[in-house]
């Protein structure tokens, strides 16, 4: 028998779509205001070649920006987490930077790099960078004082403490942040494509909405959401695989 927990997300999602569908029909909402899911799915099928092409593009741009965020986020997280001085110096700056709406920097990126792929990659990067840094730094900075004493009295080098204790300890935080970061990366890419793109889901949806093809816009939203959920699920599996020890007693152990 399949457990209720496993079924719950599917039932809840289907339930949402059913309510949405019924509401659209019951209140006779015009499709250029809020299309019913059936209309969005019809648009999805009708425009599939264009959607597929743009989704593919958005996916790889996102993954590229996210990949950069992982590399640089991990590196900066390690440096800030390992040194209280760097942490104190850099942290306010990071918070400030994270508070800037990323849509505001897209025009600047366009001035620097022109319209196209580069601003989208960089927007995905900047938006998904922060949670990775913060989580890795937190994981490193939360070493138990007793263990620190043990290691200090052994004369352990900083690099040994980092590699043997700090890094493994921060890995659960790191993998948890990847799940969040990858969904944010999609947000970044689509923002950039909407503001200044010539391809991708953002561009497609902007074009569609300017010609009142709202069902197509919603088809795009569904595709982006599906990609986000898919990537989240993949990183959740990777998390269990690599830091199963952090889920004591769970089925992942």
């Amino acid at each position: 028998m399949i457990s209720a927990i496993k079924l719950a997300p599917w039932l809840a999602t289907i339930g949402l779509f059913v309510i949405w569908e019924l509401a659209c029909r019951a209140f006779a909402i015009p499709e250029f205001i809020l299309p019913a899911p059936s209309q969005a799915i019809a648009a999805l099928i009708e425009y599939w070649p264009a959607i597929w092409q743009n989704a593919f593009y958005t996916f790889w741009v996102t993954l590229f920006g996210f990949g950069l965020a992982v590399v640089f986020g991990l590196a900066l997280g390690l440096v800030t987490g390992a040194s209280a001085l760097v942490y104190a110096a850099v942290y306010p700056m990071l918070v400030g930077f994270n508070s800037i709406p990323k849509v505001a920097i897209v025009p600047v990126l366009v001035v620097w790099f022109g319209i196209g792929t580069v601003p989208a990659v960089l927007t995905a990067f900047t938006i998904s960078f922060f949670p990775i840094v913060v989580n890795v730094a937190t994981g490193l900075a939360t070493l138990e004082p007793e263990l620190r004493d043990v290691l200090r009295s052994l004369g352990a080098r900083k690099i040994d403490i980092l590699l043997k204790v700090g890094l493994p300890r921060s890995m659960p935080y790191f993998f948890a942040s990847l799940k969040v970061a990858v969904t944010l990366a999609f947000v970044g890419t689509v923002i950039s494509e909407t503001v200044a793109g010539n391809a991708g889901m953002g561009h497609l949806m902007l074009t569609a909405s300017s010609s009142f093809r709202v069902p197509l816009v919603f088809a795009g939203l569904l595709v982006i959401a599906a990609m986000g959920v898919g990537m989240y699920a993949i990183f959740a599996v990777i998390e269990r695989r690599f830091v199963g020890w952090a889920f004591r007693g769970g089925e992942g152990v």
Partner: protein
Amino acid sequence: MTSFVELDRVTMTYGGAGNGTPAVAEASLKIDRGEFVAMVGPSGCGKSSILKIVSGLMPIDSGAARVDGQAVNGPLTMVGMAFQNATLLPWRTTLENVLLPLEVSKTHRRSFRRKKAAHIAAAHDLLKIVGLEGYEGHAPHELSGGMQQRASLCRALIHAPDLLLLDEPFAALDAFTREELWGVLQELWMRKKFTVVLVTHDLREAVYLADRVYVVSKRPGRIVYERPIALPRPRTLESTFDGNFVDLVHGLRDHIGEVRAA
């Protein structure tokens, strides 16, 4: 003969002199090599601070701290430590946790790979003494609290330290497990003959394990009473019900009462 550990009128304040009430004031004690000493006192009295001074983790304001004839001025590598929390690394097996000190310590890390087989044999030996044979490959969360604490003791002893510092190592355990571990610790000590400083607030624990018990006053901690425990070894749980044992515990109890009231 000079003592192995010697504190001479040591005063220590967290954050350095002039930063409020000292944690330890004018504390003096002498511990011989191979001796088992316990420190008892009300909670927050600076017992743990004395351990930190001896281990060199905390600088002193005034007085003198010497270990093995050398003034203490920095963390000592000849020290093994265990605490109330076992602080095992959850991603390592029991065996790997016990081996950690050898991987990172100044004196062993270069030769660790070369001597790995010998180190693993030594770890097995220790784990066997504490009754963890067969649990080498288990993760810490698969062990009970008492078993984790046993593993933590092995980790503290794997690099054959001359001095073992224990900060309420059994305080978080249930009474039965705690009394069982007294026997384990006594056995380890009788076999390996290291020097022990045990901080505890359990008077029976102190009398069971120690050759000598120091009573520490309320903060700022100073040594107010010293009591040799001349009971024969190995001591057993039965012996804790003997008249001698009970009298010693009562004697210490009275002193603690005075200290708390003062």
